[in-house]
């Protein structure tokens, strides 16, 4: 068994997943702690006929990946918080125009330059709410090297399936961590490619959704004669600018509604010892690993603790969370920021459930003992 298991860095696993998913283009701009993703792809993409380019800034790299995707080539870019700020402009464009791309945000401590190599979870809200307008987003949040690989593939699959940008949110600690993983189980993993139009060019309306609410955008450069405009103004089925009230509403309903409608397919979460838990920890990313340890330790002491871990952060798995915390007397939310996830948890737990935040934002990761301490305090009440 031993020799097939390789030690792989989190950021490297992301690039391996991307290539496995069919990504053949990456444009990025250097920023710690995400730089390795561009570095690895600059080395590995040409080996499979793909291309990497280091653009002049974050804005350009976001634009370039969308440009590549418009041509039908799966594309990825990677950055960290301060660079993510700049990418937002064109991420919103991709959401509005329904172009599938994958954006990796390996978080570091912010705001601004903050701490380049300092682990933090400060972008949980930014990835969803940092753009103008009602901009929908799928955000996935793995917590191990193996899960990064798997989730990167899933990010591309969801992007192509729902014609949407997908953000892969990571923690510095997980991006830089090395774990030995066996990837053989993913050899035949399903790879999803965007649907192409099923009507001839003369009947084609690029932004007319199918019965599932999904648009079928024919890649530009096609030989079949499908010609249309992709643009970020509100548009009707023909893709042309249109600011009529009906079109506006329809346009926002379409880009948001498709994710809402398919949220159960998009949602992914992990439940640890939740069945009879009366104290539920809700944690994401690296913190959820400490929370897993804490829950196991508490169980050994007879305390009924459990963990609910959203792997899909957005759209927020509200119903699963409500179910998971139905019988909980308290919910603990450890996170490496000043309190972000906790707001969603409060929104989706019963009023009678006590929601206890545990915020660490000094750059140290939350350790199991810190979570155990809060669980014990609650259980003794």
């Amino acid at each position, binding site marked *: 068994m031993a020799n097939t298991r390789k030690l792989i860095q989190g950021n490297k696993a992301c690039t391996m997943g991307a290539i496995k998913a069919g990504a053949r283009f990456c444009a990025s701009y250097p920023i710690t702690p995400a730089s390795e993703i561009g570095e690895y792809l600059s080395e590995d993409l040409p*080996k499979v006929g793909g291309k990497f380019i280091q653009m002049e800034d974050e804005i350009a790299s976001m634009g370039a990946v969308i440009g590549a995707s418009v*041509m039908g080539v799966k594309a990825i870019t990677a950055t960290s918080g301060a660079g993510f700020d700049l990418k937002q402009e*064109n991420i919103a464009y991709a959401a509005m125009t329904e172009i599938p791309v994958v954006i990796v945000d390996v978080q570091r401590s912010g705001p601004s330059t903050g701490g380049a190599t300092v682990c933090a979870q400060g972008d949980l809200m930014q990835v969803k709410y940092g753009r103008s307008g009602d901009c929908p987003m799928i955000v996935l949040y793995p917590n191990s090297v193996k899960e990064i690989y798997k989730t990167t593939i899933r990010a591309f699959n969801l992007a192509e399936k729902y014609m949407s940008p997908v953000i892969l949110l990571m923690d510095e600690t997980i991006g830089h961590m090395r774990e030995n993983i066996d990837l053989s189980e993913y050899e035949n993993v399903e790879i999803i490619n965007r649907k192409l139009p099923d009507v001839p060019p003369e009947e084609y309306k690029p932004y007319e959704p199918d019965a599932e609410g999904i648009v079928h955008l024919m890649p530009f450069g096609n030989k079949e004669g499908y010609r249309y405009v992709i643009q970020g103004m509100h548009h009707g089925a023909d893709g042309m600018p249109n600011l009529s009230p009906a079109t506006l509403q329809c346009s926002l309903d379409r880009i948001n509604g498709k994710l809402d409608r398919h949220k159960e397919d998009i949602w992914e979460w992990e439940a640890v010892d939740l069945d009879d838990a009366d104290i539920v920890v809700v944690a994401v990313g690296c913190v959820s690993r400490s929370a897993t340890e804490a829950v196991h330790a508490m169980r050994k002491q007879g305390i009924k603790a459990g963990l609910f871990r959203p792997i899909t952060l957005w759209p927020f798995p509200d119903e699963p969370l409500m179910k998971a915390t139905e019988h909980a007397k308290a919910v603990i939310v450890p996170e490496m920021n000043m309190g972000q996830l906790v707001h969603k948890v409060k929104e989706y737990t019963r009023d009678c459930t006590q929601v206890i935040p545990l915020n660490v934002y000094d750059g140290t990761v939350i350790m199991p003992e810190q979570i155990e301490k809060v669980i014990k305090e609650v259980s003794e009440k």
Partner: protein
Amino acid sequence: MSVHDYIKESAFPLFTCPGCTDGVVLNAFLRAYEKLGYDRSNTVLCCAIGCAGRTPTLLDFNVLRVTHGRAIAFATGVKLAKPDTKVIVFMGDGDSLAIGGNHFIHACRRNLDITAITFRNEIYGMTGGQYAPTTPAGGIATTSPYGMIEPSFDGCKLAIGSGATYVARGDVYNVNNLEKVIKGAMEHKGFSFVEVLTTCPTQFGRRNKMADPVKMINRIKDMTVPIEKAKTMSEDELAGKFPTGVFLDKEGIDLNTRYEELLARVQEQA
């Protein structure tokens, strides 16, 4: 094909103001495109925000209209993803030289094989007449009510200095030259740039005592001088003049060619 076949009549009536000359540039482009016999199935028009940025949406092409200033950045992805694509980028002067200046110079440096056309109307038209990096000295704009005090950009000099391999200027008065330089740009392998002097009677003209569109076009006529003639003129005579024609047309290895070489090298090693 006739030029009319390239126009999407469903997109009319025009969104442009009376007297706008953006259509003149579009016309010159289409005539050049038609003469070159290119195939729309591997052509992508990129553009962004503002009047110039919106014009290609009137054409029956695959059009990628993006965020302000970013058309060249998106075009870089388009061109790298599908190297056989003919990419033409339509931009305003604020679009290409202000907000998109960084992308512009780096595409020049990379010698990306695309054609970039800047509509130099000396003003931000769509947003209501604010000054551009091309607004002439003393020019009145909504954000330069006391007259423009900043020096203006020469798009051609910027392109030459940044590494573009084809650089030309045209204008909406001498349409024959305009069509010729756009045609030359599209035929060129490597980054080709055409700065086109256009007019905006509504936002620039009205504020600068040239509300009459014809008067504005006559101003262009007075402002321009063919490169050959410019070479015989003194610096004083050239003050305020814009030479037109082809400044630079040289061979250079474009980014995609370099990338194909890289791919061959890497795959040979593998």
